[in-house]
């Protein structure tokens, strides 16, 4: 299923399944997930709450809390190594160095009792063995890169002295500290105002381009995806239901869920005022997934087969994959 025929992909996820044990039974949060990511590429993973997009992000860095969670099977091949086979020291050497993560909530992901300089400098000090004085000098450059004004004096400030947008810049600076090959950003701007969101995403895009790092952007916002992603994976009920280059996906959505999403969102540039077409019903309960396609109960085109058999992600067109029995 590799998209790049020439070079090996930077990241290759194969048949990843993650489950959580809950009082209500086993929740299959991610099921048989496979995708590739090339160096320098931006892949958006889109889905609603409970679609498994955040669990996917956390799995990549082996940050799934165990118990109750567990990576049941699969491979996460990064630069040729299976991250799931590494020991704790091995994965720790990769986190924050080769792969970095940006979380949604910058307040709760920064340590309130450490200065910003210490936190951003820590990965440089740990992974590169750089002395603190030199590390702090690098932090200053990083803070300038993410447009934090007066970077030199902000080194000694604490997170509470920063606004939400500034904290998210700090998170980005921290993620960039060791020039990672891959950045995983989980809803990085969901908590921010729209003008600040635009600033943060523009910085993230520009910097990943500069250092040619790949970006996995997890979001529910189809506008953000359209503006920033090269390729898109749409998740539903713990699986990828459709994956395609961004332009192709928006021009020719093939999965009924993707089409449903596109029809249900109001667009800023739509003057017609025509009625939105919602997707009927509710997102699925992951502890009680139906036997067939998870979307079948809400799908207008569902066939008998869709209720019995689970469709797998298959190539529908050159770079376009879908998991659906219905033609279209």
């Amino acid at each position: 299923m590799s998209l790049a025929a020439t070079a090996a992909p930077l990241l290759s996820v194969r048949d990843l399944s993650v489950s959580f044990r809950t009082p209500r039974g086993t929740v299959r949060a991610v099921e048989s997930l496979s995708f590739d990511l090339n160096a320098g590429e931006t892949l958006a993973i889109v889905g609603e709450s409970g679609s498994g997009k955040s669990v996917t992000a956390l799995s990549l860095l082996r940050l799934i809390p165990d118990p109750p969670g567990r990576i049941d099977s699969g491979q996460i091949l990064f630069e040729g190594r299976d991250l799931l086979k590494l020991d704790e020291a091995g994965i720790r050497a990769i986190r924050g160095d080769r792969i970095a993560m940006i979380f949604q909530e910058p307040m709760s992901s920064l340590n309130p009792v450490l200065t910003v300089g210490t936190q951003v400098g820590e990965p440089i000090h740990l992974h590169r063995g750089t002395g603190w004085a030199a590390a702090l000098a690098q932090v200053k450059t990083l803070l300038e890169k993410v447009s934090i004004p007066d970077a030199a004096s902000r080194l000694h400030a604490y997170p509470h002295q920063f606004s939400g947008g500034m904290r998210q810049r700090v998170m980005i600076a921290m993620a960039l500290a060791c020039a990672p090959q891959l950045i995983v950003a989980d809803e990085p701007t969901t908590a921010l105002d729209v003008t600040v969101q635009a600033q943060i995403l523009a910085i993230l895009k520009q910097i990943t381009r500069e250092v040619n790092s790949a970006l996995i952007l997890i979001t529910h916002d189809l506008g953000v995806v359209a503006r920033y992603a090269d390729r898109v994976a749409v998740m539903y009920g713990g699986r990828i239901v459709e994956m395609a280059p961004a332009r192709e996906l928006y021009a020719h959505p093939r999965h009924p869920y993707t089409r449903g999403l596109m029809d249900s969102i109001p667009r800023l540039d739509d003057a017609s005022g025509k009625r939105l077409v919602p997707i009927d019903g509710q997102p699925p309960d992951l502890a009680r997934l139906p036997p067939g396609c998870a979307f079948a109960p809400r799908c207008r085109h569902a066939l008998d087969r869709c209720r019995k058999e689970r469709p797998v992600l298959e190539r529908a067109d050159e770079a376009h994959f879908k998991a659906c029995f219905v033609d279209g």
Partner: protein
Amino acid sequence: MAEAAVPLLRVRDLKVHFPLTRGAFIQRQIGSVKAVDGVSFELARGETLGLVGESGCGKTTTGLAVLRMLAPTGGSIAFEGEDITRHDAARMRPIRRRMQMVYQDPYGSLNPRMKVRDIVGEPLVVHGLDGDAARYRERVAALLDMVGLLPDMADRYPHEFSGGQRQRIGIARALALDPRLLVCDEPVSALDVSIQAQVVNLFMDLQKRLSLAYLFIAHDLSVVRHISDRIAVMYLGRIVEIAGRDELYRDPLHPYTKALLAAVPIPDPVLEAARPQQVIAGEVPSVLNPPRGCRFHPRCPMAEARCAQEEPQLRKTPSGRSVACHLATV
């Protein structure tokens, strides 16, 4: 807007200032947070006015003040022609039947220990309109039906419902007293995309059926454009622009409106690639210490010396729009 008739809601120069005090026993006022600082607008019967802006712009405070859930410190609010600015609780009571609120959080705004019947019917009980048991049940069933829930759901508790259904319960409760005005504070922001459309459609259907007016407070400009007739844009406690929804999007006059619209990504990669990506710098300053002159001037790409000195007033343009900017050409 009907010119001759009295508007449903008229807000004039509304101010809501919160005192800032220092000292534990002897409190001295050391300043004030001017959350809303001179806001004027009108809302006609059956109309939707969208109120947009970023966090801290005062849109929620404006909504609460309109419902008199906060006491205004200045200006006036007239509802159906009656000045309610200084009404006490007793005098507000009959008016509250006519104006209700729908909250953002469908989880936090429903009492988890109450059955849906009692949540939806509580306003009827409070206002002594519940009648006998049979009529009460019938009325609650009708309200649930109106928002697309099944009458037998009345015996369940909030935790048994999804986010979208809970928001429907909140709407049913707000409709119980047959109000003319709903103040909706981010009513769809907490919902998933596919559910959001269901609730947006419900709002629009109910408006047609019940000729409700909405003050629709939200930060999502795409939703606001879809649902509103007119839109007011707020920045740091003031309205900077009011216009019909299509005019506002086609031809924004205030530089802040332009910046806001440019920042919203459109779900179309081809269009996005062609769109100029102008990102305005800076963040919304603290309401504690708003900039002198035009509050937007430190971030404004067009600002001139005058903008740092004089605060622009909201002025009507010949085409009936309003804008508060020295430089906007109208």
